């Protein structure tokens, strides 16, 4: 059977599932809705405008890449990310947006395929053998409301998710050093495009501390290869920084040296909740100190838990979950569409856990909240922000997920997590 007929058979099989049909219809609706909303309301107010401009600036005026006067909102990413947007900058803006979002749709199909492959690879033995439940969760991902914002704003989260899933698949499937290098390079490329996966880096180190034996164990060669692989693409940016010193200065100023108090918004990160609190009650604050503090606390706790883990099998999935949760909890602006980076990892965890594990409920409720309810609370925030400018519901479920991951890593025998054990 050739690839085409295999694909057709597979699609036909999927189409037999009612939920899959609904998911496809709903996801297509998100796509077309985003195009309509773009042309009617968001043409001059979306993130893609910045990506589109940066491609042009990279080609024509690279030294001014971080001159924020050129952008509607700040451009913060690594300079090499602009390379990625150059092909779109050649097209007219409207056409570029549509083409970009068509790519987003294709990426979501690829993400679903990768998600399926990873799930099959790590599925715990007591799960159903057929793929009915897997399809249901793939549909949950495709039906997730954060896709609407991802499409409307012309965001790049789908690209990041795909890179994260591919690298995860490679890390789990292939143990050879060359594959570990490839997996980490792919992760490094995702960081270039958007640094969401930045806090995944520490969890690539295969380091463990056995409390009973009071002994560290480190797989030095694999860890070193992974670190080199992930840092190498990021370091390529420094060639540009070296060639164009204003770029380095601009990058630092945009990302790290700003200490201005920032006004209210509905980000669900802990940093933003604190900043909103300080803003509301006129407490002097420095956003950089708050960010650093939260990274140290959440990142530190996560890394310690990860090192002290009792179980090794597929621990990288949980490391990835930690890495993304750290970013979402710590960085100032954590929006609804960023959750598209986390939900596939939560789905993988659901299948990696025993079928009726005690932490499944926590992961499942977080997944459902992120996919279908978080966006509603953004609306609620607009209603209540004059008195209560805290979009804390997303934060709450991020902490629930964080606790669930901790619980998994802290248990000696994963069967202990079964409800009826």
């Amino acid at each position, binding site marked *: 059977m050739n690839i085409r007929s295999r694909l057709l058979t597979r699609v036909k099989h999927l189409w037999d599932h009612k939920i899959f049909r609904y998911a496809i219809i709903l996801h297509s609706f998100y796509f077309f809705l985003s195009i309509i909303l773009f*042309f*009617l*309301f968001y*043409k*001059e*107010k979306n993130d893609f405008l910045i990506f589109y401009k940066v491609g042009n600036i990279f080609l024509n005026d690279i030294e001014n890449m971080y001159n*924020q*006067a050129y952008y*509607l*909102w700040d451009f913060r990413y690594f300079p090499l990310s602009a390379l990625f947007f150059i092909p779109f900058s050649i097209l*007219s803006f*409207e*056409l570029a947006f*549509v083409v970009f979002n068509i790519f987003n749709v294709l990426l979501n199909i690829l993400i679903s395929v990768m998600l399926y492959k990873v799930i099959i690879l790590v599925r715990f033995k007591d799960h159903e053998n057929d793929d009915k439940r897997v399809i249901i969760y793939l549909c949950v991902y495709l039906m997730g409301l954060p896709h609407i914002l991802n499409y409307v704003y012309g965001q790049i989260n789908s690209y990041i998710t795909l890179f994260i899933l591919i690298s995860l698949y490679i890390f789990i499937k292939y143990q050879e050093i060359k594959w570990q290098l490839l997996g980490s390079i792919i992760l490094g490329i995702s960081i270039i495009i958007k640094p969401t996966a930045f806090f995944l880096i520490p969890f690539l180190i295969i380091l463990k501390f056995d409390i009973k034996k009071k002994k560290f164990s480190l797989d030095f060669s694999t860890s070193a290869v992974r670190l080199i692989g992930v840092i190498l693409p990021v370091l390529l940016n420094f060639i540009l920084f070296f060639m164009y010193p204003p770029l380095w200065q601009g990058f630092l100023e945009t990302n790290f040296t700003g*200490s*201005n*108090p*920032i*006004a*209210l*918004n*509905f980000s669900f990160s802990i940093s933003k909740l604190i900043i909103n609190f300080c*803003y509301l009650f*006129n407490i*002097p*604050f*420095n956003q950089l100190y708050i960010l650093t503090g939260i990274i140290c606390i959440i990142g530190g706790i996560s890394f310690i838990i990860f090192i002290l883990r009792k179980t090794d099998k597929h621990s990288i999935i949980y490391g990835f979950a930690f890495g993304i949760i750290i970013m979402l909890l710590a960085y100032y602006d954590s929006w609804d569409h960023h959750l598209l980076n986390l939900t596939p990892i939560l789905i993988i965890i659901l299948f990696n856990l025993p079928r009726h594990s005690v932490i499944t409920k926590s992961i499942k409720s977080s997944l459902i909240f992120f996919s279908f309810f978080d966006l509603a609370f953004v609306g*609620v925030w607009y*209603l*209540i*922000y*004059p*008195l*209560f400018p805290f979009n804390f*519901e997303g934060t709450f479920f991020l902490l629930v997920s964080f606790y669930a991951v901790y619980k998994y890593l802290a248990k000696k025998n994963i069967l202990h997590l079964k409800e*009826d054990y």
Partner: protein
Amino acid sequence: MKRKEFLIGFLLIFILTSGRLSNVSAVNYGIGVKQNEGLIWKCKVCNKVEMENIFGSEWDSSGIFTNLSKGANMKWKINSTEINSTIISIEYDIWYWNLGEEWGIKDNSSQITIFVDPDDYSTNYWFLNYTSLVPFLLPIPVGEYLGDLSVNLNDFYDVDNRVLPTLNVEVLKDNISPGYPNKDLKIIAIYNDRGILNSYKLYGKENTVIIDIALDFLPIYVIPSLIGLMVVFSIGVAFYIIKKKYPSNKK
């Protein structure tokens, strides 16, 4: 083959018309306030010593900060609004900041003129005719107006219209004129969807709030929505605790 031709044709039509489609959404700016409407702002924080250090001893003797002090209110009554193809004009009576409960006779009458098209402002524009360095009223939709205006604004200004229409201002010591301001300052001005200044915070050294002014108006839906959210959240937590304490025996 026919299908391919159709798709190519559709794509070509789309490319050719996409520019036109986008023009349909060109923004028409308008006025968010109504004739005879009263607007009241309340001062929550006013550090007079710091204001004197920054702007000099005359800082509260004229302009929008006249008699400003903590707990004081300022009232505007909109007398007339007018819009033509180039200018928005708003005439209003003003009762400067006072601590009393009675407004009495107005202190002054004034007029605001704003260009309908933000492009009509000169490049490097700043709101120097306002002591507050930001306007108290802007055209609507205010987010879009600020976004368009940002191109012409001076480097002091940074527009953030992603969530709430916000004008951030950062002025370094002596940047306007020698000794004015006498210290670095930052301002965050947030506007409501009617283009009215909703919150004004002036920050000094180490982000200490020196002035905090807020529109004395709470939309009717805020308190019920907040109560609703708290009730739903409490019920959710209670439900979770009960489920945890008394798990169902169904297996």
